[in-house]
């Protein structure tokens, strides 16, 4: 028995390190990762980076003031420093993006694995539920749920996470179904390994690659979703700074102070771009077969 451990362990590590090497060779993907790290630092240490207080510091007579040297992004519709609000907005975007994705992945993996592994009526039921969630214009569901629960940061995270799991479930289900027919799973079952242990130890590690890729590519979409929700007035509550909320502030004054809407939108686009580059890079690195597509 110890021999097998010795042989299998280094082989697995080298697979991940190979993927890491492939990833590092992809300059665009590394660029995306760097941008995300910078944004994370900006978000975590927001009070250090933001020149003014994003909520309390209101400059009299500067409503909608234009960008200047001391205020590079200008002022918002109430006379607050826009740069500071945008920096603090990064917190909301990243928090919602990561937490909601985390919830969606967890639910999706468990449900998808159950459907793929147990098959029969469990699969039938779960597949219809997946269809139901996929058949929904998600933003409609979000709007209704946010209205029911009352808009807040926690609601936004929870609601996006609870409604976004279907695509992860679909991928995991398909992969688990394919893997279930392979010999090593048959062997494990023949030895009498319990179902959930097979799923946990043997199946899930093999489907994590696509899930990681899908999750990374999904974060961008979730950040846009959060902004859209705040934009419609159902996400983060004012006066707390969020990119979508600031965009909504700017919308009311769009023809008088266009810069208020411009900067938060630009930040959303850059962040989403960075996550998409990272996701594409991870896909190429983790699954070289799909490289050219």
């Amino acid at each position: 028995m110890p021999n097998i451990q010795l042989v299998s362990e280094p082989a697995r590590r080298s697979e991940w390190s190979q993927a890491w090497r492939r990833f590092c060779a992809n300059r665009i993907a590394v660029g995306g990762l760097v941008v995300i790290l910078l944004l994370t630092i900006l978000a975590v240490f927001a009070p250090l980076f933001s020149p003014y207080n994003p909520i309390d510091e209101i400059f009299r007579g500067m409503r909608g003031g234009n960008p200047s040297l001391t205020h590079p992004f200008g002022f918002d519709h109430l006379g607050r420093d826009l740069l500071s609000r945008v920096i603090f907005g990064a917190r909301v975007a990243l928090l919602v993006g990561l937490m909601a994705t985390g919830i969606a992945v967890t639910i999706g993996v468990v449900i998808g694995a159950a459907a793929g592994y147990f098959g029969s009526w469990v699969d039938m039921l779960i597949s219809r539920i997946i269809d139901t969630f996929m058949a929904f214009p998600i933003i409609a569901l979000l709007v209704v749920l946010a209205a029911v629960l009352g808009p807040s940061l926690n609601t936004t995270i929870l609601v996006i996470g609870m409604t976004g799991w279907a695509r992860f479930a679909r991928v995991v289900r398909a992969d688990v179904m394919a893997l279930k027919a392979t010999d090593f799973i048959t062997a494990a079952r023949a030895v009498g390994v319990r179902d959930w242990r097979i799923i946990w130890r043997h199946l899930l590690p093999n489907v994590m690659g696509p899930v990681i890729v899908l999750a990374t590519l999904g974060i961008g979409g979730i950040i846009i979703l959060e902004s859209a929700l705040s934009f419609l007035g159902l996400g983060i509550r004012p006066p707390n700074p969020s990119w979508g909320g600031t965009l909504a502030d700017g919308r009311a004054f769009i023809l008088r102070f266009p810069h208020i809407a411009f900067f938060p939108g630009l930040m959303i686009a850059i962040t989403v771009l960075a996550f998409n580059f990272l996701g594409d890079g991870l896909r190429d690195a983790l699954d070289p077969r799909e490289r050219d597509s």
Partner: protein
Amino acid sequence: MLLYIVRRLLQGVVVIILVSVGTFIVMRLMPGDPAYLLLGEGEIRISEEQIAAIRRRWGLDRPYHEQYLIWAWNLLRGDFGDSLIRTGMPVRQMIFETIPVTATLNVISLGLALLVALPAGIIAGSRRNAAFDYSTAVGSTLGVAVPNFWLALMLIVLFALYVPRWFGDLPVVGRIPPFGLRSWQGYILPVLVLTTEQMAVLTRVMRAATIEVLAQDYVRTAYAKGLPNVIVLVRHAARNALLPVVTVIGFRIAFILSGTIVVETVFAIPGIGRLFTDSVFRLDYQVVQSLVVVLAVLVVAVNLLTDLTYAFIDPRIRIG
């Protein structure tokens, strides 16, 4: 084939039932009693008897499972009830008035997106790593990353502030209205916004599919026969490369509707999306719950249609 359609229809019915149950539960969780909402909102006072009548009319005095069945039965008969806020206005009429607007908007956008994305994807896929391939890659990456409501706002700024200043004398460009749908020009900006994302996604899919198809033997055979490049690409490759594009369109119909909701709100377009957000904000539950089910039916129907399109595009696929 027939068996397959019947099975898919049954699955669709199950999905719609699940959606309607979900909607029903969520609507019961919403704060406020619809009957009392009427009393509080309107200028005209409504008597207790009228409330009792409304409750009886909508069966609000019955147990929940009965309420659901009554509601579902009314929906099935096409009776969506009356709007709570715009009193007396049947929800069905509201929905049927807004559907053509949203449908026109989305059909034009999707058509335009396909018109650009299909050739662009084929060319990019057949000449990989050429300048054109790189520029479509950059374009489609940006198209996906830019939030549509931001793009919409920036276009409004551009066409309300700058274009009249620069090109005010030009006949069409100078007079594109930034809001509303008073003339056909009003469609230009919303269509532009909705098209951008579709175009970006579909170009990527078409490119990937073209690359995959071009590597297959029958394409090599076609070239070996001496057929010119254009014929091979258009007649042989494109047809099979269309399959994934159809899949993605079907798959994205829910996203497309989501996009409409935001874009209609920004451009003040009287379509389904704005009706939806307006109704949520005014707590017009009757409209919201009917709309959600109508949208779900739409998505399920489109999904079924795309699956059936497979057999049409690729005769090798025997559905059944």
